Structure formats: structure tokens, C-alpha cells
């Protein structure tokens, strides 16, 4: 797994997760668990799981934002490397310029080609430290814009269709909390790539000049510095390679012979000029040791940190932990296996007037359905208010058999009442058993005789919802002389 493909997957995953939020969670659960179950062997490898998931999604919709981002990352990296090489070559050519008249001051060469790099390396080390140290954060804010990696980042923005797409996803402010560390190390990697190229350029430029031109190095100072002291400094400087390449450590004779004040300009004899050229191993070793090698290390470190943060970012992208949870958690289903076939009632009501306004002139027995009439006195009083005089309550439904009900209806209808009143518990729904009873009454007593279903609400009264329920259900009988009335106080 290369980190460029990791980068591409990060860009794609961010895009896919963002788009996936529009899908219903239930559909996502089922899909992700299905994919997750095929990846059970990688349960503890979230990155592999996420990438496998992404590739599974990619089968459905091929996208190339990530590929383009990775390509741009490579292109900019290569451009920075080349820019570094050219800059290094150019600087080396300028610093090591020798036309046979003025020898190259080895101190100048080392100072220009190595010292700034050491200083910049120290700045890099400071800024590579955790940003929570305020001074370092301030340093980055002040000098960060000079980072060639950041400049490359700005360039990348020019190639993105939108500032939040492709490689620019990494420094989109909305993703900063998760992706900022990865972006930071991407810039660092790019800048170290530039620095690495710079050192390669300096070295190749120097080697080219040394190989194809006759160079002479000298040193000089206006200060009172003895040759021995100068040699001591150089010996200290050359400690890293003195064991490995002793010929790259200038000896006392070379130092003494190349001290510049001893010569008059243009008076270098051929033999001395050859000897003064012997500074080049020291120069190359110094550039390699203090320029190239540290940059190789910082480049490798930046690459490692970039990879590390890309991996962490992949698992922490908005929606990624949720996705992993969906993939690795059992899919729990409690929903109905099939859609419901519910009855839709037609709005065919039965006659009824607002509560307390009904007026009848009915005198006779009242059918007490399923023990609705618990307190006969109170019920009778309430019925009287609606013009119904209950001479007696005849029990039906409940514990009585259907045969007893039939006999009751037959006896009731034989007396040819003006109408039939049936008292029911308003809170109990009208069952088909009751509807059978009402149909029996209608059949036995004949049409056009009012059948009044009286809803008794007990101490709680009759709720509007109970009243609607009864009216709507009894309305299904299509009986124009069937009435539903609430008795007692409204709920």
C-alpha cells in the first residue's frame, strides 16, 4: 500500500462518505454489514476494511477524484524536486564559479551551501515539534508561508475544480480538525523533497564543476586566526566522516598552503593550483553530511509522518467511524417482515348531534350491552335528559350467550317499540359481535325504527375519539336510522 494510493483513497472516501449521507441509514446499515461480513478476517484492520469498502463502492460508481489528487500530488512533488535540483545547481555554479583568476573561498562556499541549510533545518525541527508550544506555533505562522510545500499546496488549489475537492480536500477548513495534521506533513514532505533536490543539485553542480573545470580553493581571514586553530575547527566539522573518509579532512599542509594572504592575485603556479584543488573532498563531504543526509532523514521522517497521519485521517474522517461500526456490528432487525395491510375506513358516518343536544321521545326498556350500566340510577337520569325514559335495563352481550341475545331481541321487537336504545361502554370498541347484535335488532324490528346506540363514558365521560370510533364503525352498516349518542358529561 503506497501512501499515494492512501492519499487517493482518503480523498475518495471523504467524497463518498459525504455523498452517502443522503442515503437512508437503514439501507446503509444493510449494505455496510453485508460488505463487513465479507471482511471479517480484517476486523482489527480498519484501514483495510475502509479501503475494501471503498473499492466495493467504486464498482458501482467509478470515480477518479482520488486518482487525480494522487497524480497531482506526484506531479507537484516531481516539480518541487526538479525546482530544488535546478536551484541547487544554479547556486553551486554561482558560488563555485572560478575563472582561473580568483580562487573560490572555501569558507564562503561552505557558509553559503551548508550553513543556511543547517539553520533552515533547525527551523524545520522547531516547527515539526507539537504546535501546542505557542512560540513554535507563532514561528510557523510567521515563516510557514515561505515553505515551498505550502506554495505547492496553493498551486494545487488552482488545479482543483473547487477549493474543497481533490487534493485541496486536505486543507479545506471544514475538514481541518481531522486532516490538518496530514496536510501539515504533506507540506513538510514537499518542502523536504525540494530541499533534497536542492542538495542533489548542489552536489551534482559541484561535482560537475570539479570534474570538468580546474578549481582552486583558498581560505582567508582578517582576524588573527592561526592555521592550527582553523584546522581544529575543520577537524571538528569533519568528525562525522573523518573515520570513513580521512582524505576528506584537510591536513595542516593544505591549510597552510591555501591561506590566501600569502599569495598575490593571479600568481598561482600550476603545482600549487593542483594542491589547492584538494579541498573538494572536504566540500563534497560537508555538503553531503550537513546538507544532503539531514534532508534524506527529514524527507523520510516527513514521509513516515505523512503516511501515519493519512492512515489516522482515513479512520477519523467524518462518517468513517460510523461506517466501521456498521460494518463490524451485527445487523439487528426488529422491523416487520412484510408491509401492513391495514383497513381503511370510509368516512360514512351515522346520525349524531353534538354532545348534550340530542332530544328523543322514547319510553321503554334499554338494552345494557356487556354490563355498561353499572349505576342504573345515574344512567337513567342521564338518559332522561336526552328524552329517553328507561323503564328497565335488559342485559345483553358479555357473559350471556348469543342465543340468549337472539331471544332478547325477538322478545323486544315483538312489543313493537318506537325505537331501540342500546347502552354501550364508550371506551370499548364496537366489535363485530355487537354489530351482529345491531343487525339482529334491525332484522327483527324492521326498518325505519330508530336504533339508538348510547355511549356511556362512566366517570371519565365520552371522549371525542371514542365517539368518532363508534360513529365511523357503525357507519359501515349503512343504516340511516341508526343513531349514536353520547350520554353523560363529555370527557
Amino acid at each position, binding site marked *: 500500500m503506497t501512501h499515494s494510493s492512501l492519499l487517493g483513497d482518503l480523498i475518495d472516501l471523504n467524497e463518498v462518505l459525504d455523498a452517502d449521507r443522503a442515503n437512508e441509514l437503514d439501507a446503509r446499515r444493510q449494505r455496510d454489514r453485508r460488505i463487513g461480513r465479507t471482511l471479517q478476517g480484517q476486523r482489527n484492520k480498519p484501514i483495510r476494511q475502509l479501503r475494501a469498502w471503498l473499492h466495493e463502492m467504486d464498482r458501482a460508481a467509478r470515480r477518479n477524484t482520488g486518482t487525480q489528487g494522487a497524480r497531482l500530488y506526484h506531479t507537484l512533488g516531481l516539480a518541487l524536486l526538479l525546482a530544488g535540483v535546478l536551484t541547487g545547481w544554479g547556486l553551486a555554479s554561482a558560488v563555485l564559479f572560478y575563472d582561473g583568476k580568483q580562487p573560490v573561498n572555501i569558507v564562503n562556499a561552505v557558509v553559503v551551501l551548508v550553513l543556511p541549510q543547517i539553520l533552515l533545518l533547525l527551523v524545520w525541527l522547531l516547527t515539526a515539534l507539537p504546535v501546542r508550544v505557542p512560540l513554535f506555533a507563532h514561528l510557523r505562522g510567521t515563516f510557514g508561508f515561505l515553505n515551498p510545500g505550502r506554495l505547492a499546496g496553493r498551486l494545487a488549489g488552482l488545479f482543483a475544480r473547487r477549493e474543497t475537492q481533490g487534493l485541496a480536500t486536505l486543507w479545506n477548513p471544514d475538514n481541518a480538525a481531522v486532516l490538518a495534521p496530514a496536510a501539515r506533513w504533506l507540506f513538510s514532505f514537499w518542502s523536504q523533497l525540494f530541499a533534497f533536490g536542492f542538495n542533489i543539485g548542489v552536489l551534482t553542480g559541484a561535482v560537475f564543476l570539479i570534474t570538468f573545470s580546474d578549481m582552486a580553493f583558498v581560505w582567508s581571514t582578517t582576524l588573527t586566526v592561526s592555521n592550527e586553530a582553523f584546522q581544529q575547527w575543520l577537524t571538528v566539522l569533519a568528525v562525522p566522516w573523518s573515520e570513513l573518509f580521512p582524505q576528506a579532512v584537510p591536513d595542516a599542509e593544505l591549510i597552510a598552503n591555501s591561506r590566501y594572504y600569502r599569495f598575490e592575485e593571479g600568481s598561482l603556479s600550476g603545482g600549487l593550483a593542483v594542491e589547492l584543488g584538494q579541498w573538494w573532498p572536504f566540500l563534497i563531504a560537508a555538503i553531503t553530511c550537513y546538507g544532503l543526509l539531514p534532508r534524506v532523514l527529514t524527507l523520510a521522517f516527513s514521509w513516515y509522518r505523512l503516511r501515519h497521519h493519512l492512515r*489516522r485521517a482515513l479512520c477519523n474522517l467524518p462518517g468513517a467511524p460510523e461506517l466501521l461500526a456498521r460494518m463490524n456490528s451485527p445487523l439487528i432487525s*426488529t*422491523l416487520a417482515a412484510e408491509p401492513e395491510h391495514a383497513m381503511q375506513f370510509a368516512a360514512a358516518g351515522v346520525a349524531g348531534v353534538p354532545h348534550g343536544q340530542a332530544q328523543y321521545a322514547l319510553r321503554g326498556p334499554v338494552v345494557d350491552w356487556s354490563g355498561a350500566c353499572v349505576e342504573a340510577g345515574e344512567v337513567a337520569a342521564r338518559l332522561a335528559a336526552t328524552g329517553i325514559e328507561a323503564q328497565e335495563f335488559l342485559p345483553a352481550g358479555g357473559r350471556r350467550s348469543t342465543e340468549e341475545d337472539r331471544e332478547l331481541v325477538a322478545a323486544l321487537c315483538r312489543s313493537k317499540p318506537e325505537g331501540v336504545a342500546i347502552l354501550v361502554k364508550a371506551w370499548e370498541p364496537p366489535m363485530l359481535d355487537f354489530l351482529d347484535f345491531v343487525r339482529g335488532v334491525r332484522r327483527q324490528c324492521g326498518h325505519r325504527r330508530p336504533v339508538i346506540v348510547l355511549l356511556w363514558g362512566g366517570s371519565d365521560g365520552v371522549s371525542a375519539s371514542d365517539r368518532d370510533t363508534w360513529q365511523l364503525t357503525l357507519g359501515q352498516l349503512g343504516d340511516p336510522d341508526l343513531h349514536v349518542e353520547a350520554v353523560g358529561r363529555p370527557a
Partner: protein
Amino acid sequence: MTVPVFAIVGHPNKGKSSIVSTLAEDESVAISPMPGTTLENRGYPMAVDGDVLYELIDTPGFQRARAALEWMRSHAVSSVDRADTVRRFVDAHRNDPRFSAECQVLTPILDGAGILYVVDGSRPFGEDYEAEMEILRWTGQPSLALINMIGDSDYSEEWNRALGQYFRIVRVFDAMEADFNRRMQLLQAFGEIREDWREALHRALRVLRDEHARRRTLSARVIAEMLVRMITHIRRRRVAPDAATERVRDELLKAYREDLANMEPPCRTEVEQIYNHRNVERHEPLVQLLDDDLFSRQTWVLFGLTRQQLITTGALGGAAAGGVIDIAAHGTSLLLGSGLGALAGGVSAWLTSDRVANIKVLGHPLGGEEVSIGPMRNINFPYVVLGRALLHQRMIEERNHARRGPLDISRQPVQSLVDVAARRRFEKVFSRLRKEEGYSADLVASLAALIEKQIERQTENRTKHTAQ
């Protein structure tokens, strides 16, 4: 091991469907005051990766229980063959529309389902229930009675006495108000009605508890992601250098407000879907910014560098070029080359920056004015957003799937994070977000962990409060 199946039986309109809806977390269950809404049995299997642990069956309820019982009594030979008599009844009336409801109810029970008999405890017991309870007793299947408290009145004692004569276990359960723990207690009670169902139900309980914890974790994560997005959000716009600041500011502020307002609803929907709520009608006021002083205007030139940065770059570039001259002069120029180069580079950058800004590369202007709003620096803003999100999460977690009304968040007091220690921990994360520093990939995870703890702590507080 047989899969436990429970047939939910009872009078129509007494909360059977509400109980199913609550236990199955299914909003598609038709809950209607009209009796006979449920025409056919409907199964609600509780499955883990397709492996069914138990199943609830919502039945239409008895419609002609008296007539059915009369038939059974007239066909029963002795008390020992009552279950067979019930079976004969179903066989005889399978295609009889008159007893369609009875056959629907009895078929799963005769196939081995346990009986969950539901009554409304807020209404008095009536003799019209006796016939169906007697039929259920005749089936000989394990059973449990649930007193569902639909209204305010309480007749549970009366019902307890009546149901105790027919059912071994009687429980009071409010389908509309039951929280997760009560639902779990009820499922545990299901395991008591038959010994060999206990293991499957215990496994189901474990799975559901794990899922409950996972839902909190996921909700906390979703809230954390939204919070981070809202706090760190920046609205930028490139404008002409002569654009009126007031107008630009107002337009940008409006767009910023809209951005923030649009970030909350998807988070709410996601949390609702985590808890299997798919059709919640939500009433919630838009979040307030609390602070309008978020506007900044700066010149940006060349790849986003500010004018000051560009001058510094120019000066450094000039100094480097002058330095080459100093080197060529072997230092005899006394760094004059570097000094003059820096001056020339800086001044030319300062003078030409406006012209550079107007140059276009690949259709993009190299520079111009950039105005921005954000990130949200108001110290109270994250707590307001978090409070709203926690309140919504709590309401959703407590909301029963039997409830179909709107979720009115506006009427609820927003929770405050009174715990000083918790606030301190939150502030550490929020200040990093506000200052746009200290970002790390696990910052959201840390915030999510804090939010999850907060959710748990608030649940504990509520439990204590309820217990008191």
C-alpha cells in the same frame, strides 16, 4: 432450540399495536383508534444478522369471541381435549369470513406461540373480556398478561385480580412511555413464561443492550462531527477591492448563518435514524449565532499570500539575489547587495501587488480581496449547540416508536452542562477548535467520548431523579 414466538392478543384498540411498535421499534405499525385496523397477523422477527432470536406477531384480536367459545364448548368432549377443540375450531372455520379474526389470532398460538394478552388498565375490567380469555386458556399455551396504561385513570388493581385468574404472569406496561430499561424488563419477563425460551431471550437482551450502547456512541460521534464542523466553519469570498464592506459583510453573514443552520438538521436526522425513527416531525428554532463580530477582511495576493507576506517574500528574494552579488564581491560590498536587494524586492512587491492580483492563471485570479466569517469564536456557542443536540438525542432516545406526534424541541429547556469538571474538559477541545490549532485526527473522537459520557451522566441523573 425453538425460536420464541409471541402472539400479541387482546381486544381491538387496547394498545396491541402500540406495544408491538414500541418493542419492534417500528413506526410502520398502523396505530389507529378504529377497531379492526389490523386485518391480518403481522410478524416482527428480531434478527441478528438474519438469525432470528424471537418473533412478535401482531394479531387483529378477537371479534366474535362469545360465538367462538360457544362453538368450542358445544364441541368439546372433555376438559383434557380443549386445545384440540380450539384446533378443530380453527380447522373448521379457516375459510369462514365470520371467524376470520379468531382464526388469525389462534393459528400462531396453536403453532406454539406464547400469548401476550394486552388490556387497557386505564379502563375498568368488563365481562366482555371473559370469553376471549377463556379461549386463550383453552389453548394451553404459555401466556403473560400486559396491563397497558393508555389513559390517566388507573384500574390496574381490578385488572390484576381478573387477569390473575387466567394468566400466570401479569405486568403493567405503558407502551407510550416505556423507556429502554422497561422494554428490556418486559422482554425478560417473556423469558419467564417458558423455560426453553429463556436462553434465546437472554441473548436477545444482550444484543439489544449492546446495540443501545452502540447507538449512544454513534449519536455522540455524529454530534461531535457536527459541532466541530459548526465551530470551525469559515465562509470566504473573494471580492473586488472596491466592494462596499457593509454590504459584503451582511451578505456573508447571511450565508454563514444559513450554513450553520443547515448543519444541524442532517445531524438530527442521522441521530433519529440511529434510533430507528424515520418519520419524526421536528419543531426546532434555528440556532442563534450569539456573536456577529466574526468578520474579517484582508488583501490576499499571489497564491493566497497576504500583502505583508508578499512584501516579506519579495524582500527575502531580493536579499538572496543581492547576496549573490555580495559573494561575487568577496564581501567587499559590505552586504550592500543584500540590503538593496531586500529593499528593492520589498518595495516592488508592495507596488505591484495590486496588479499581480488581477492576473488570471487557468481562470483563477492570482489575487484580490478576501473576506471571511468564522471560525465561531463565541465561547458559549458550542455549549448552546451541544445543549440542543443533547436535548434532541435524549428526546429521541426516550421517544417511543408508538408515539406519532411531532417532536417539539422548542418547548423543552435546553440542558446546561452544570458539571464544572465536564465543562473544563469540553473547553479544552473547544478552545483548540476556536483557535484553529492543536488539530489531530482523534480530536473528534475525544469530543465524541466526552459527549457520550455526558449522555450517560444525564441518563444516570434522570434515573436517580425518577427513583426519588
